[in-house]
């Protein structure tokens, strides 16, 4: 429900290029041949520098937080299906446009040291 106009900026911003590249790589994989979404793929984000990469789901890893690509990051059906002529990177950028402010807040809270706010010391 938070709007961008009133949102404080998380102290450590999420690294956009690595998130975009991870999502684009996912789109490349699941759209190769017949479209086949992979419910085991997650976007993992490292606490120290907020960079992200794509991996299979596993138990939690120290210093990381992860989010399921299907259903959690992108909950609409067929959201990760490439349209005719669309590149994975273009699609990734469109998808991230829709979730970027919210994703920044999620990650800020998941790495917050206390429960006193996402930028609490």
């Amino acid at each position, binding site marked *: 429900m938070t709007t961008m106009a*009133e949102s404080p900026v998380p102290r450590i911003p999420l690294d956009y290029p690595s998130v975009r590249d991870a999502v684009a790589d996912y789109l490349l994989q699941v759209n190769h041949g017949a479209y086949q979404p992979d419910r085991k793929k997650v976007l993992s984000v490292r606490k120290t520098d907020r960079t992200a990469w794509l991996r299979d789901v*596993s*138990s*939690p890893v120290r210093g990381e937080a*992860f989010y399921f690509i299907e*259903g*959690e990051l992108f909950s609409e059906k067929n959201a990760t299906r490439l349209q005719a002529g669309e590149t994975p990177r273009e699609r990734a950028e469109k998808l991230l446009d829709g979730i970027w402010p919210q994703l920044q*807040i999620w990650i800020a809270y998941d790495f917050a040291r206390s429960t006193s*706010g*996402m930028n609490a010391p």
Partner: protein
Amino acid sequence: MNAAPEHAYLLDPAAPEEDSRRDSRQAAEHLAAFVRQFVEEDPRNALPEGGRPRIWEPPLLGVAAAGDPLFTRLKTPGVVGPLHRSPKEWLPGAQSVISWFLPYSKAVRASYPKKSPLPSLAWVSGRRNGEVFNNVLRRAVIRFLEKHGGQGVAPSNEAQYQAIGMIPLWSERHAAFIAGLGSFGIHGALITRLGCAGRIGSVITDLELSPTRRPYREIYEYCPYPDRCGACIPRCPAQAIGAQFGANWRDNARCVIQGRDVVGDFFKDWGYHSCGHCLTWLPCADRIPRASSPRAQKPKAEAREEEEAAFLSTL
């Protein structure tokens, strides 16, 4: 009644009436089943260290009406405070507040030393990583509500949320109290049917769900202090609990220093902090203590009636 008069604000003879509408009850039951399954199956409900034991057992769940007058009382200075926002200030059109209590698993609870002034690694990791899972659960509940045509807001995960001078814009514990999950202990934690060793979360929604009946009327109803308990007072390594601290029974600054600085320094290499002495090895750690008020220890027939009314807490 153990509480100081200042806490009379939460005395509420007008608990939400039992909602007879089948729709809202069924919706709440579906939600309860979803939450239970999510806690049992999501891989993030595990410590990242050691044998990766589960952090949380399935939660208690309760529902408060967004218009419950107790939410207005939370704005009273000295209660939570004027900064505290009502459900409708977080979500215009709010109808219900869904609140849950996640109890620590036996593995995490049993790891806590009985006598050391410091917690276990499993505890501090569970506190930190368990709150990440609590965030995951908040978001999952919001998605569930959206799929059912509603909206959801988790105040504790909103960008504007903060605590100013330890006064939060949204109190998970007070919301849980209003949602029928439990009453407070003098240690400041909520004592539920599954004890106090756990964490609380909530989501506000514009869907109308049947409110859970509160089986208590007084803020400290489940806490047997002063007549029949007080075990948390000597157990606190920071001497932060006691009658000398006035109506709140607690010196929050001492508590924070212990958890953040003392424990945080000890677990610096791990990146963890926070203490849990007041949630472990106590009569209220995993249940409502036997010595609590007579109303909290109801005869079987009355207890059964309570169980039926608090249907969501049968998770």
